[in-house]
């Protein structure tokens, strides 16, 4: 058995593999996807299917053009994951070209321009969502009231196709602003907040996902279940979601206590918009978040704070996407400056000093010249 090329240790490996990692995350996303399809009916299914298909197509195109082997790369599922996350953050009645542009932007500019998986500085799904939000504001903020799949109010299959492909307004459905959007417009008219929140914010509904909103961001409970499953599978460390939700909670509570008539309640912040989906699936994206424990805490806190700032004072109702992108831009800096302490070295890298009493004792310690009495030690 002739070994032509020496292989270094180790000679046994942990059974985990990259594709199994990705499929576990996709499984964790399945409850939300099914609920979204149930909640928003056929257009939702069309959108998700379109996103996944076009992502696969673009992935193959990019891999082929950069000459990478198709089999090992296509099966690692990262393209599917990005597409699903993007689909879940789109409004349910978005037209078909939004889905294709979004997944195209995510896969090509978000990932493959940087050389494929593992090398993109920004989270592709959030990148595509922000790009769509900025370039097609109308379609991206066209929300509809949730209507269960087979109920009368829900569009039938054919109508679903019409909504997605011909963007027909035949079925105008009950358009309604998300709680966040509603809050933003009312606040700007100077209405006191308490009166507003009673009208349209029922904490239970919003956590169960009965309110309007994009596909996957409505029901926070289902997202939490998926997230906890991933936590138990040790796919990501608990530090990222807890620091993200924690900092958002902290800021919103202090603001809410100081001036309840201006700032929304913390529960409102947590259950509305894409916070929960981001906390367990976007912020924890391994490629674009820092590697060290303290770095992750810093990253999560930064995302939470920026989300709060943009939501409260910014121009856009939903701040999570921008916050995540900004912190992704900070990640190389965090990894550069925040490093674990190395064995035998202080935090700045210089070898640690031995305690003074040991150095003094050693100074006075003379080697045992005299023959010891031979008694056993």
């Amino acid at each position: 058995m002739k070994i032509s090329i020496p292989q270094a240790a180790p000679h046994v490996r942990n059974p985990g593999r990259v594709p199994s990692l990705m499929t576990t995350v996709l499984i964790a996303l399945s409850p939300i996807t099914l609920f979204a399809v149930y909640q928003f009916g056929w257009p939702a299914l069309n959108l998700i299917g379109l996103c996944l298909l076009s992502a696969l197509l673009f992935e193959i195109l990019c891999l082929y053009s950069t000459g990478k082997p198709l089999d090992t790369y296509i099966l690692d599922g990262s393209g599917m994951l990005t597409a699903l996350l993007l689909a879940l953050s789109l409004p349910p009645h978005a037209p078909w070209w939004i889905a294709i542009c979004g997944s195209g932007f995510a896969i090509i500019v978000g990932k493959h321009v940087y050389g494929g998986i593992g090398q993109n500085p920004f989270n592709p799904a959030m990148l595509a969502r922000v790009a769509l939000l900025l370039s097609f504001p109308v379609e991206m903020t066209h929300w509809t009231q949730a209507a269960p799949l087979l109920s009368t109010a829900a569009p039938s299959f054919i109508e679903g196709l019409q909504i997605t492909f011909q963007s027909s307004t035949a079925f105008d459905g009950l358009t309604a602003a998300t709680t966040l959007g509603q809050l933003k417009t009312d606040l700007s008219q100077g209405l006191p907040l308490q009166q507003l929140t009673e009208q349209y914010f029922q904490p239970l509904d919003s956590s169960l996902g009965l309110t309007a909103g994009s596909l996957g961001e409505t029901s926070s409970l289902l997202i939490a279940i998926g997230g906890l499953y991933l936590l138990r599978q040790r796919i990501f460390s608990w530090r990222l979601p807890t620091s993200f939700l924690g900092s958002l909670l902290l800021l919103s509570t202090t603001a809410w206590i100081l001036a309840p008539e201006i700032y929304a309640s913390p529960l409102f912040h947590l259950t509305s918009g894409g916070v929960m989906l981001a906390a367990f699936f976007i912020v924890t994206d391994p490629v674009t978040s820092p590697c060290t424990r303290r770095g992750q805490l810093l990253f999560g806190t930064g995302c939470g704070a920026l989300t709060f700032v943009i939501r409260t004072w910014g121009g856009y109702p939903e701040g999570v996407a921008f916050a995540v992108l900004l912190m992704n831009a900070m990640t190389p800096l965090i990894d550069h400056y925040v490093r674990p302490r190395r064995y035998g070295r202080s935090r700045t890298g210089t070898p640690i000093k031995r305690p003074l009493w040991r150095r003094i004792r050693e100074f006075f310690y003379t080697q045992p010249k005299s023959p010891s009495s031979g008694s056993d030690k």
Partner: protein
Amino acid sequence: MKLFGFRGGVHPEALKQHTADHPISTLPLPAALYLPLQQHVGEPAEPEVSPGDYVYKGQLLARSQGQISAPVHAPSSGTVVAIDEFPAPHPSGLPVKTVILETDGKDHWSPAWTTPTDPWSLRPEEIAREVGLAGVVGMGGATFPSAVKLGQSLQYPIHNLIINGSECEPYLSCDDRLMRERAPQLIDGIRLTAHALQAKQATVAIEDNKPEAFAAMSAAAKGINQLNVIRVPSRYPMGWDKQLIRIITGREVPVGARSASIGVCVHNVGTVYAIQQALCAGTPLLSRVITVAGGAIAKPQNLEVPVGTLVSEVIKYCGGLNEEPARLVMGGPMMGQIVPHTGVPLVKGSSGVLALTAREVDDGPERPCIRCRRCVEACPVGLMPVEMAARLRADDIDGAVDYGVQDCIGCSCCSYVCPAKIPLVQYFNYARGVLDCRQTATRKAQQTREMALARQQRLASQQAARDARKAAKTEDKAKNNTKNNIKNTRPASKNPDRPASGDDAGTQHKGAAANIIATDSRVTDIPLQSEQLS
């Protein structure tokens, strides 16, 4: 005993059940033994015998030379066939100078052998000297000469002698069996080493997945108050000496300093057994216990093997290979070295022979890194393998050094947990190789500068001496002319040092450069020719 926290580490499947229950059996004496001269850290040993000599068992084959080295003894009686290049147990398969000994099967000791004096009456430095003469080296795999380690540790007050019985590598169970079957000798060895180091107390650390070994050692250690046997969590790399120091004493060894400088000394169980054999039984390090395991071995077991046995002999004794192994590994699967073929000898530092099948190696296709940072969590030294590997892939060695690649101990935790199956340890070995080349290159450049300077000074001093002689000659001539100016003018005497061709002056007079080289021990004296140019 309170244990302290530690960082990183992985939890590979122990897979020791195949060999843990087999008692240590001894290998019948092989026909030939191949003893490399470089079986330890430091200078290779200098052969004492020449081909054709008859040697007895335990006779000195090669003595240690230089500051850090260890002697090599004959594991059995026989004739020395040759001393030349033979493939070394190393991934590259390159040869090393080896003493090839044909055993005659009689295996009898040299008549000059005497029973050793009572070890308990020896002074610490005498114990260190005896251990040095017996050729004992670190058996955990580091193979650092133990005598030098004992000597170095004597300069510091040693508070705690830690005996490393953790054996955290999967598959290996040789230390486990050693502790179960030879606990009394081990305890004697520990007390002798503690005496040699003047250590206040000794602690035997055994992983909690070896209860029988713990029971055997505690029973043997009952009644000795400064010696306690403790369980440590079984988590690779518990066998890393600095990890043991951190978990038992809570302190860390400063980088670049010896562990003795914080009052701790760590020895492997095998080393302590070898010390006991050398001092009490008077036998130098001739054989060692190894584990032969792996999916491809018919009957995996633990074996007491003379040093220098070929791997093929060992595998043949264990029932041969029942399938073609994907990798043949010397040592454990995590830090062991691959060997190109079975025709390589076992050395003092080999703790096991593994013939791993493709299933066990499970070498999936290497995928691009997705920065999942499991390697950062797993690294016990606190490095960032993901950043170092990214820089090394882009050939940025200085960037990797900035992230601490020179601190990497090669424990393979990061490659083990990497889901993308990236050979991280080979990247870091490659980086250390490049740093090694740079260091030798800078040292060589420095040496070149010194020699060039020395040469210029030599040429300048020769030139000055020549001018002085010429000036003195013209002055004598002037004096001669004035004294006998009536004598006929003789032709100009032949100038003894006719300027050589070209602008260079004077013949070579091997002065400065040779002195510099002469200090190098290997260059013999060069007879210095007189000035005359024939």
